[in-house]
């Protein structure tokens, strides 16, 4: 390079020096970078506007008549309406996710990662799981409607035309199942092979290796995935509407088991019902319910993030 510049004029030499020293400010580059950063801040701004807008009406409403809101269920009279049945219903649905979706999803993931050989059947099941994760939530609602509400009505809820807590809980569980499987698969995959080989080396069977070596190491990841899928189930509305979440009716006496075959409701369906009403008092109530729902979901997600940060290990 130097050799070439020797023959050039003084002015050209000066130009080259300036070009190479890189002092020239890159205006369009900086603008571009700021534009990109702006997209992230726009996302943040939307979040803040959403939270502020909801809180503005929700906090005064809760402060005003919090006891009544948390103490009563659905009513068509705004003064009597509350979110109690929705809250309990959502907790019942969480029980379903824990009892049905988690064991099944973790079991399926263990088979796919630990037992299955790379055959055509395995690959088919894997593709199938991935596609199930992409199926819109409302299609799970249609599945629930056809199978639980109509086909299995005598078992699911004979007295309520099949529109029971059992139908809602099972539908939600099916919906989050692929998410549980995929996150668990990832957690299992992160456990190094050598851990398993050490177990096999001392003569343990596959299940013994999984139980006492793989699962303990994968537990944080599995737990995080499970918690995240619960957050997802908490906010889902469309499938519940399809299987007939009846706003406001929930048999709360005797806990989950007693209300299995009875009508059910959940917090998001209650919000949907209140949003659809024309009276402004119901809009305030919807805001209050939304603040509670968002609070619950953020709390669950925060738990997942803390779990991940606390127990994450690098190999």
């Amino acid at each position, binding site marked *: 390079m130097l050799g070439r510049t020797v023959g050039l004029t003084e002015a050209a030499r000066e130009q080259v020096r300036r070009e190479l020293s890189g002092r020239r400010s*890159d205006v*369009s*580059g900086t603008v*571009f*970078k700021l534009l*990109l*950063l702006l*997209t*992230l801040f*726009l*996302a943040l701004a939307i*979040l803040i506007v*959403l939270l502020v*807008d*909801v809180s503005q009406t929700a906090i005064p409403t809760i402060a005003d008549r919090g006891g009544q809101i948390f103490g009563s269920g659905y009513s068509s009279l705004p003064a009597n309406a509350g979110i109690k049945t929705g809250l309990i219903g959502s907790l019942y649905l969480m029980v379903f996710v824990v009892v049905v979706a988690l064991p099944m999803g973790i*079991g*399926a993931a*263990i*088979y796919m990662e630990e*037992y*299955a050989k790379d055959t055509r059947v395995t690959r088919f*099941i894997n593709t*199938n799981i*991935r*596609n*199930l994760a*992409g199926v*819109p939530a*409302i*299609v799970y609602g*249609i*599945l629930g*409607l*056809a*199978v639980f509400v109509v086909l299995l009505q005598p078992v699911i809820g004979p007295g309520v035309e099949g529109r029971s807590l059992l139908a809602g809980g099972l539908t939600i569980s*099916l919906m989050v199942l692929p998410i549980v*499987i995929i996150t668990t698969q990832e957690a299992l995959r992160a456990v190094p092979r050598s851990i398993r080989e050490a177990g096999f080396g001392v003569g343990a*069977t*596959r*299940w013994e290796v999984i139980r006492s070596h793989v699962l303990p190491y994968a537990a944080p990841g599995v737990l995080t995935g499970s918690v995240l899928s619960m957050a997802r189930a*908490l*906010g*889902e*509305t*469309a499938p519940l*509407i399809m299987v007939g979440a009846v706003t406001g009716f929930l048999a709360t006496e005797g806990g989950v088991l007693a209300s299995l075959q009875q009508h059910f409701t959940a917090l*998001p369906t209650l*919000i*949907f019902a209140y*949003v*659809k009403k024309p009276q402004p008092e119901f*809009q305030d109530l*919807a*805001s209050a319910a*939304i603040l509670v*729902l*968002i609070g619950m*979901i953020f709390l669950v*997600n925060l738990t997942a*993030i803390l779990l991940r940060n606390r127990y994450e290990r690098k190999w």
Partner: protein
Amino acid sequence: MEQMVTTRMDGLTLADLAGARSRHRRERTMRAMFFSAALFSVIISIAIVASLIGGAVDFLAKVDLSTLWSSGWFPRRNLFDVKTILAGTIIVSLIAMIVATPLGLGAALYLSEYARPRARRFLKPILETLASVPSVVMGFFALRVISPDLVQRFFGSDVPVFNLTAAGIAVGILVTPLVASVAEDAMHAVPSALREASFGLGARPRTTSVRIVMPAAVSGITAALILGISRAIGETMIVAIAAGGTGGSLFNLDPLQGGQTMTAAITSLATGSDQVRGSGPAYPSLFFVGLLLFVLTLALNLLSERFVRRVRKEY
């Protein structure tokens, strides 16, 4: 057991090394349980397809086929114009992608190419939090903030509160984190050797991002956008709350008017306003629309997976 092996080294047989029979039995049971859990995911898929097709066939047998291409979607008046709900779905998804493409890709590019690890740790949770906002809440937000403060402000107050544009923008916000996350993965997978070569030639960060990283990640970016469209098509609650068209809608291509999408049509068939059971074609029509929705999203998801796999092969 180890002691047994060491003391009887001379007369050791295969039977001694085989392990206790109870452990083998346990191993087989566990394996069978995990396998049935994995197989269950296939059963869910079969059940989804079977219930959709069963209902759709029922619908097609009952309906007067000429009403499938008529003036509007009014199930109670036996008008099932498919192009009405298709148009609504396409308009909402288009608007959603107009919002989500710049936001999602911009955020992905910033996170992948510009953000330092410390900034990432603060910026990434913004997207994750946005992703966790339930769709009912986003629907409420569309109705309360986006429609009056954005759409009506810019397009005049003669635009109805319930309109496709407000719903589309809200769907776009909801889809943004997904687009950003998939696109960022793709950009992250671009080997740093390519970037270093570009920098070595004296290219600026912007040139490297736009001319090197984006083209190299183009299949992953395409996959992200297709996945975004698929999610937008399947989004239900926002449209059910904010797009109008409860009970039915005339064929409409104006995004500033209310309209009916496929998902909203399904929910309104299953809930209050349009709940119609009995022998008519209205009730089974929800399975028909569900089948359309399922086929459409599945095709998009498979296409997107194709693009993702292409990235993996290249690097």
